[in-house]
C-alpha cells in the first residue's frame, strides 16, 4: 500500500526492513526523527548517546558484536564523531554499520553550512545520497549490503529537504538477519601502528573496488533526454529541481553514491552530450571529481556554493523560465523565532542583560537569548564552547573579566561536551562562573531525553545524573541552584557567585514550559486601570505581552502564568500568580 512518509521516517523504515537491530545517536536538526522513528520498532534497540562520538563508538561496538547497526547525527555532529570515524574506516565492520548524517543547506537550524561529503572523501568511507523517501528506504537497505560486502562503514547523507519532506513509499517485510559471530582479530580491530600500516593499503584497494562497483550500480543512473546540447550531472534534492524545470529535455546522470564517484560512467555520459553541467548544493564535490578525471564541466561558476537551491534558481541559472510573483511594496516585519511564553530561560537572560555581563553562549533554545530585546549573548560557536571559551577569556584577561563574565549552557549540551570544559576550569584554575540552564530536556530539537532527565529514548526510567554532585566531583566547590522564574533570587545569586574568588556553577532549574507534565498557573490577570503604559514588562521579550493603546494586554492563548512579567512591574498591574 502506498503511504506518504517523511524522509527521516523512511530512513528508519529502511533500517527496520534491512534487519538493523541497534541504533545509537545524538539528536540534531534535521536528523533527529530518524532515531525517534527507529525507536518505535520493537525489533530495534535504540538509544540517545550523550554525544556523537559516543554514539558512533557505541554503534561500532554493536556492529562488532555482529548486529546491523546505525548511528545518526546532524552535519556538525560528524565533527564530534570524526575521531572514531577516520579509524573505523580502517578497521571495517563485522555486521553492517551505517552513519546517517543530515546536512542543512540554507542553515534553517544550524550554525554553519558545512558539506558532509568532504568527510566521506577524507575518511575514505562510501556515501549514499537519497533524493526522496522511497530512495531513503532503498538506499539504507543497499548501504548495509555494501557495508558488509566491502567491509566498511558507510554514510547515508540526508539534507533538510529530503529529511523533512514526505513523499510516497511502499513498505516491505523486515529481513530477518542472524547475529554474526564475533571473532577476535587483532590485526583488523586493534589500530596501533603495526596493524594500521597493514590496514591502510586495504582501505585504498577498497576504494578502487568501490569505484568499479559504482560504474554499474543501479543507484547511479542515466536518464535519456531529447536535447543533447546539455547534459546534467546531479544528486539528492538538486536532482528533483533539475527534473522539475527540464523534465525529460536534457539527459541526466543521477548519482546515488557520492563517494567514491564513478569514472567511466561520467566519461561515457559526457561523450553523449555537448556541454556538461553539474548541479549540486554547497561545495563542488562532483565538479572537482569530473575535472580531476579530465571531464570538462561547469558548476560552481554558475551556481555558487552558498545556500539552498530551488526550481526557480535552477531555471534562472540555466536559461529556463522562472515564474514571478507579485510582492507587496511595503516592508513586512520579520517574524524571528523567540523563546516561548513561560520559557524558563527568559528570566535568567533578563538578569544577565540587566547586569551587563559578558556571556559566552552555546547551542540550544537559549541561543535565542541573543536576539532583541534580551541581546544577552556575546558568542556562540558549537556545543560545549561556552564553558571552554570562558576559561580562555578569563585567563587571557588575567582576572580582569572574572567578575562580569559568565558561560551559559543547557543540560543536554553540558552532558554532550560541556563537562570536559568544566574539568578544565577546575584543573587549570580560572575564576569562571558557569550557568547550567537545566530545563530537564533537550529542547530545541523537540524534546529528547538525555542523561539528566531520568528517562531513556524509549521513555523508560533511567539513571539520572546528579548535576550538583557531578560539578562538585570535578572540583567546583561552589554549586548553587536558582529558580529562573524568581528574578531577585537569580540576581542575588549571580552577583554573589561572580564576586567569589573561585570557580562557580549556578544551575538555573525549571522544566521546559512545553513539557506535557508541566502544569501551568494559567494566564495572568491584569488590572489595566493601574497600567501607565511604561512598557517595563516588555523588556523580557515575552510573546504573550503587548501594549495596545497605552495599556498592557496578555494573549491568553500563549500566557502560562509564569509571573516573570509581574516582577518587572512597579504598579501592581499583574495580579499575584498562584503556584500551579
Amino acid at each position, binding site marked *: 500500500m502506498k503511504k506518504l512518509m517523511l524522509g527521516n521516517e523512511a530512513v528508519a523504515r529502511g533500517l527496520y526492513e534491512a534487519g538493523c537491530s541497534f541504533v545509537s545517536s545524538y539528536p540534531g536538526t534535521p536528523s533527529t526523527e530518524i532515531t525517534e522513528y527507529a525507536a518505535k520498532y520493537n525489533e530495534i534497540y535504540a538509544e540517545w548517546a550523550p554525544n556523537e562520538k559516543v554514539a558512533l563508538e557505541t554503534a561500532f561496538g554493536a556492529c562488532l558484536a555482529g548486529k546491523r547497526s546505525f548511528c545518526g547525527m546532524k552535519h556538525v555532529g560528524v565533527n564530534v564523531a570524526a575521531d572514531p570515524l577516520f579509524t573505523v574506516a580502517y578497521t571495517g565492520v563485522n555486521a553492517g554499520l551505517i552513519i546517517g548524517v543530515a546536512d542543512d543547506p540554507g542553515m534553517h537550524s544550524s550554525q554553519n553550512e558545512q558539506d558532509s561529503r568532504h568527510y566521506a572523501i577524507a575518511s575514505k568511507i562510501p556515501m549514499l545520497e537519497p533524493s526522496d523517501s522511497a530512495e531513503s528506504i532503498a538506499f539504507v537497505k543497499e548501504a548495509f549490503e555494501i557495508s558488509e560486502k566491502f567491509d566498511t562503514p558507510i554514510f547515508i547523507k540526508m539534507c533538510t529537504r529530503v529529511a523533512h*519532506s514526505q513523499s510516497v513509499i511502499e513498505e516491505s517485510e523486515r529481513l530477518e538477519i542472524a547475529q554474526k559471530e564475533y571473532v577476535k582479530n587483532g590485526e583488523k580491530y586493534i589500530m596501533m601502528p603495526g596493524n594500521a600500516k597493514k590496514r591502510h593499503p586495504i582501505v585504498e584497494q577498497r576504494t578502487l573496488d568501490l569505484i568499479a562497483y559504482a560504474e554499474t550500480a543501479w543507484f547511479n543512473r542515466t536518464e535519456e533526454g531529447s536535447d543533447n546540447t546539455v547534459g546534467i550531472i546531479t544528486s539528492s534534492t538538486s536532482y528533483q529541481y533539475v527534473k522539475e524545470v527540464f523534465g525529460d529535455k536534457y539527459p541526466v546522470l543521477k548519482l546515488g553514491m557520492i563517494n567514491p564517484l564513478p569514472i567511466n560512467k561520467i566519461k561515457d555520459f559526457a561523450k553523449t552530450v555537448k556541454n556538461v553541467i553539474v548541479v549540486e548544493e554547497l561545495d563542488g564535490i562532483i565538479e572537482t571529481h569530473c575535472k580531476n578525471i579530465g571531464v570538462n564541466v561547469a558548476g560552481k561558476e554558475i551556481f555558487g556554493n552558498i545556500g539552498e537551491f530551488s526550481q*526557480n534558481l535552477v531555471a534562472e541559472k540555466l536559461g529556463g523560465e522562472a515564474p514571478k510573483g507579485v510582492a507587496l511594496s511595503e516592508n513586512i516585519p520579520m*517574524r524571528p523565532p523567540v523563546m516561548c511564553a513561560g520559557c524558563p530561560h527568559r528570566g535568567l537572560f533578563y538578569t544577565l542583560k540587566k547586569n551587563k555581563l559578558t556571556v559566552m553562549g552555546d547551542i540550544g533554545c537559549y541561543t535565542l537569548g541573543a536576539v532583541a530585546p534580551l541581546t544577552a549573548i556575546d558568542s556562540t560557536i558549537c556545543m560545549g564552547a561556552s564553558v571552554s571559551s570562558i576559561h580562555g577569556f578569563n585567563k587571557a584577561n588575567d582576572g580582569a573579566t572574572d567578575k562580569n563574565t559568565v558561560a551559559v549552557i543547557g543540560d543536554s549540551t553540558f552532558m554532550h561536551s560541556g563537562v570536559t570544559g568544566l574539568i578544565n576550569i577546575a584543573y587549570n584554575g580560572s575564576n569562571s562562573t558557569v550557568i547550567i540552564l537545566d530545563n530537564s530536556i533537550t529542547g530545541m530539537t523537540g524534546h529528547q531525553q538525555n542523561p539528566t532527565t531520568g528517562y531513556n529514548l524509549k521513555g523508560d526510567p533511567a539513571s539520572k545524573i546528579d548535576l550538583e554532585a557531578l560539578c562538585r566531583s570535578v572540583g567546583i566547590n561552589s554549586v548553587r541552584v536558582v529558580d529562573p522564574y524568581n528574578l531577585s533570587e537569580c540576581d542575588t545569586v549571580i552577583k554573589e557567585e561572580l564576586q567569589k574568588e573561585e570557580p562557580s556553577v549556578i544551575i538555573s532549574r525549571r522544566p521546559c514550559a512545553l513539557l506535557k507534565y508541566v502544569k501551568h498557573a494559567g494566564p495572568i490577570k491584569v488590572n489595566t486601570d493601574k497600567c501607565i503604559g511604561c512598557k517595563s514588562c516588555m523588556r523580557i521579550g515575552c510573546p504573550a505581552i503587548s501594549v495596545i493603546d497605552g495599556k498592557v494586554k496578555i494573549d491568553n492563548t500563549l500566557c502560562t502564568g509564569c509571573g516573570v512579567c509581574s516582577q518587572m512591574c512597579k504598579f501592581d498591574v499583574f495580579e499575584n500568580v498562584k503556584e500551579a
Partner: protein
Amino acid sequence: MQTKNIMIVGVGGQGTLLASKLLGRILLSKGYDVKVSEVHGMSQRGGSVVTYVRYGDKVYSPVIDKGEADYIVSFEMLEAARWVEYLKQGGKMITNTQQVNPMPVIIGACEYPTELEAKIKNLGVDLNAFDALSLAEAAGNSKAVNIVLMGKLSKYFDFTIEEWMTAIEQSVPPKFLELNKKAFLLGREA
C-alpha cells in the same frame, strides 16, 4: 496533470502541520503523486512557518517557489502579506484575519502594517479573508483554526464531504474528532 501547489503559512505553534497532513492524506487517496515539505527546529518557536503541499501525476521538487502557488492558505494576516509573492497569476489566497504580533512589533522596533487585506487585493489577488479564529472558538477550541481553514479550502476541490471527513478521522485523535468535524463544516460554510 500538471503539478498543483498549495502553501500553508502561519506562525510556529498554530497547527500548520496538521493541515498539511490532512491534505496529503486526501490527495494520496485520490491517486495523486504527493510531496509535503516542512521545516522543523529553529523555524518553530513562534517564527514564520511554511509548509508546501504538491500533487499531480509526478511530483519532483518538494518545495514551492515564487509565483508558483495555486493556493496559499494563511493562518495570520502578516504571513499572508509575507508569502503573497509565492502565489501564481490567477492563484487563490485564503487567510485568517487574525493578527499575531511578531517580536520586532512587540518591542516597538516597527509597526504591524495596516490595511493588509486591501493592499493584497490591490495586487489583483483573489483573496478570501475571514475570521477563522472566531469560528474555531465557536466549534469549541481556538486551536481548530487549521481545520476551519481546511474547510474553506475544501470548497475549491471537488472531493466529497465524506472523503474529507475520512481524512480528518485519520488525522486527528478520536477525542477531538467531533470538534474538528464541526470546525471543518463551519469553515466550509463561511
